[in-house]
C-alpha cells in the first residue's frame, strides 16, 4: 500500500545520539504497574528511549503493548490505580535545565506548566477529545490563556490563526462552532491546533490517525510533518501501524507486553530488523510491488497481561524460540550497532 519512505535524516540521527544536548526527553527504565481487582498488571516493564530535538520518535506495538501507558506516564495522566516504579526516570530537557517528571507532583503548578505548555498531546478519538458543549474556539483559547500571557482577544486571534495553520477553511467561522459540526478529520486538525497553540517543544501523538480513513490519514500525517518543521518541535508518535511509522519517524521503538523489543533509527529497524517480533510485524504489512506474495500474520494472541509469560514475553508466539532459554530468564539488551539495540537471545 505504501512504500518505505524513510526520512533521510538518519545520518544526522546517528550523530545526534552522541551529542547529549540534543536530547529533549529521556526515559530510563520506566515501569508502570496497575492495581486491579484481579491483581497487579505490569503494563510497562522497564523501557528506555530518548526523543531528540526536532525529530520524530515512533513507538510501535500491538494493543496492550504499553505504548499508550508510556505516553500517559510522560504526561502524568495515569489513573490513580497506576504506580510508576521508584527507580524510573523521565527527564525533560528544557532550555533552562532538566526536569525530572516522575518526581513532580501530579497536580503541581510545574507539572501543569509542562502539560500542555512544553509537552502537548493529541489522542486517537477526534470525536471524543472535544467536549460537546463548548465551541472549538473556547477549548483552544482555554489552552492559550492557561499557558501564554495574552488577553482574551489575542487568544482568540491566535486560535483563529492556528485553525488556519492546520488547514481548516473559514477559521473565523469555525472557531465559534461546536465539535459536532466538524467532520472527524477536521476535528483531528482542530485537536492539533489546540495542542500546538501553546508552542510546545514536544508533541505526543497517541494513534492520531487510527480512527480516520486512509486519505485523511495521509493528509494529517503530511500536516504533522510540515508543522513539526514550522514549529521546530519533536514528536513522539505512537501507533500500531508500522506503515505509518515509516512515513514519519526517524527513530523507532518496538514494544511488546511492556518491553522494548528493538530500538534504532528507522533504517535500522525497518531495513535491518533483528528481533523475530519486528520481523513478523513487517511480514504482516502488504508491500507495493510484491503482489503475488502472501501476508504472514503474527501467529497466536497477545497473552493476558495478568499472566505474563516468564522469560522473554514474546516466547509464546516466537517461531525461533530456544527451548529452556527464552521461557526461563529474560534476555539482555544486545547492541547491533551504535544506534541499534535488540532484546533477544538470538544475538547474545
Amino acid at each position: 500500500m505504501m512504500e518505505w519512505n524513510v526520512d533521510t535524516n538518519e545520518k544526522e540521527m546517528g550523530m545526534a545520539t552522541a551529542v547529549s544536548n540534543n536530547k529533549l526527553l529521556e526515559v530510563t527504565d520506566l515501569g508502570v504497574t496497575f492495581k486491579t481487582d484481579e491483581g497487579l498488571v505490569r503494563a510497562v516493564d522497564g523501557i528506555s528511549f530518548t526523543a531528540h530535538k526536532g525529530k520524530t520518535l515512533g513507538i510501535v506495538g500491538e494493543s496492550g503493548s504499553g505504548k499508550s501507558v508510556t505516553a500517559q506516564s510522560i504526561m502524568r495522566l495515569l489513573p490513580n490505580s497506576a504506580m510508576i516504579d521508584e527507580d524510573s526516570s523521565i527527564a525533560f530537557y528544557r532550555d533552562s535545565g532538566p526536569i525530572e517528571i516522575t518526581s513532580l507532583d501530579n497536580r503541581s503548578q510545574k507539572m501543569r506548566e509542562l502539560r500542555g505548555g512544553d509537552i502537548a498531546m493529541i489522542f486517537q478519538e477526534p470525536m471524543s477529545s472535544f467536549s460537546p458543549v463548548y465551541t472549538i474556539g473556547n477549548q483552544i483559547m482555554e489552552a492559550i490563556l492557561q499557558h501564554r500571557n495574552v488577553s482574551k482577544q489575542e487568544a482568540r486571534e491566535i486560535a483563529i490563526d492556528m485553525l488556519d495553520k492546520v488547514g481548516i477553511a473559514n477559521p473565523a467561522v469555525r472557531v465559534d462552532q461546536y465539535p459536532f459540526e466538524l467532520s472527524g478529520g477536521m476535528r483531528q486538525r482542530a485537536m492539533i491546533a489546540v495542542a500546538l497553540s501553546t508552542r510546545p517543544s514536544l508533541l505526543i501523538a497517541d494513534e492520531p490517525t487510527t480512527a480516520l480513513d486512509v486519505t485523511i490519514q495521509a493528509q494529517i500525517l503530511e500536516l504533522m510533518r510540515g508543522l513539526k518543521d514550522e514549529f521546530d518541535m519533536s514528536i513522539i508518535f505512537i501507533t500500531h501501524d508500522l506503515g505509518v511509522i515509516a512515513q514519519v519517524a526517524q527513530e523507532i521503538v518496538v514494544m511488546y507486553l511492556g518491553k522494548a523489543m528493538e530500538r534504532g533509527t528507522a533504517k535500522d529497524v525497518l531495513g535491518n530488523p533483528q528481533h523475530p517480533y519486528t520481523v513478523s510485524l513487517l511480514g504482516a504489512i502488504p508491500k507495493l510491488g510484491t503482489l503475488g506474495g502472501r501476508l504472514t500474520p503474527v501467529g497466536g494472541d497477545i497473552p493476558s497481561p495478568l499472566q505474563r509469560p516468564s522469560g522473554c514475553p514474546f516466547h509464546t508466539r516466537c517461531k525461533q524460540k530456544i527451548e529452556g532459554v527464552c521461557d526461563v530468564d529474560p534476555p539482555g539488551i544486545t547492541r547491533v550497532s551504535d544506534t541499534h539495540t535488540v532484546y533477544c537471545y538470538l544475538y547474545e
Partner: protein
Amino acid sequence: MIRFVIERFFGMFVTMFFVSIMVFIIMELPPGDYADRYAFRKFSGTGVTVTESDLDNIRAELGLDRPAYQRYFSWIGGILFRFDFGDAFAYETSVNNVLGQRLGLTLAILFSTLIITYLVAIPVGIYAAVHRHSAADYGLTIFSYLGLALPNFLLALILLYISVKYLGSSVGGLFSAEYQDAPWSIAKFVDLLKHLMVPAIVLAWSATAFQIQTVRATMSDEINKLSVTAARARGIPERRLLFKYPARLAINPVVSTMGFDVNRIFSELPIVALVLGLAELGELLIQSYLDLDMFVAGAILLLLTFIIVFMNFLSDIALSFLDPRIKLKG
C-alpha cells in the same frame, strides 16, 4: 430553536387533553353518581325521603342525564373558557373557592422542596463521584438506600414524634396559630417559611437521595471521558477542569428529570400533608376522595398534572440551552 419551543408548547396541550380524559374517567368511577351524593348530602338527617324521580330531577337540573362525552366537554369547557372547575358540594361552594389559597401554598411547598433537593444533591453527588470509594461516598450510598426505603410519611411521623417528645412543640401546619387568619404581612411570610422547612425537608428526602445517585453516576461517567483527559493534557487546573467539563454535564440529567421530581413530590405530598396537617392541595385531594367530592378531586388531579407537564416543558427548554446539539437544530 423556536420551532422546538413551539413544538413542545403544543405537545404540552396534547398531553393535557389526554390527561383530562383520564381524570374525567377517574371522576366517573365511584359507584352512584353526583346526584346520589348531592341528595344524600342535602337531605340526609332532614327526614326527607328522596325518591327516584327526585333524583331524576336533580340529574336533569345538573345536566347529569346527558351522555358522558357531553358532560366531559362542558366540564373541560368550563375550565378552559371560564376557569371554572365546577362545584364542591361538600363545601357548598365552587371548586375555585376551595382551591383558592391552597394552590399558592402547594407551589410554595413544591419550590422550597425543589430548591433544597438541588442545593444538596448536585454538590454532594459531584463530591461523591470525585471521591469515589471514599468513606463519604459509602455513607452517601447508605443514605440513598434509606431515602427510598423510608417513606416520606414515616419520616414525617418520626419528625413529629421527635419534635413533640423532645422539643415540646409541633412542627405541623403551615402557620402558627396567631397568623392562621391574619392578613399577609412580612411576619406571616417569615412564619410560613419556618413552617415550610419541615415539609420541604421531608419531601426532599427521597428526591435528594435519588438525584445524588443520578449526579454521581453521570459525573463518574463524565470524569473518565477522553475530553476531560484532553483538557487535563492541556494543563488546566484540576478544580477548574472538573467544574467546566464533567460537572457541567452532570447537571443535565438533573434538569431533564425535573418534571419527574415534581411528579414524585406530588405523589408523596398528599400523605405527608395529611400527617403534618398542611392545608394544601394534596391533603384536600385525600379528603375529597374520601368524601367522593369528585369535582374537587378532578380539579386537583388536573392541576397537579398540569404543573408536572409544565415543568417537563420548562426542563426541555432549559436542556436545549444546556445542550448545543438541541439548540442548533430546528
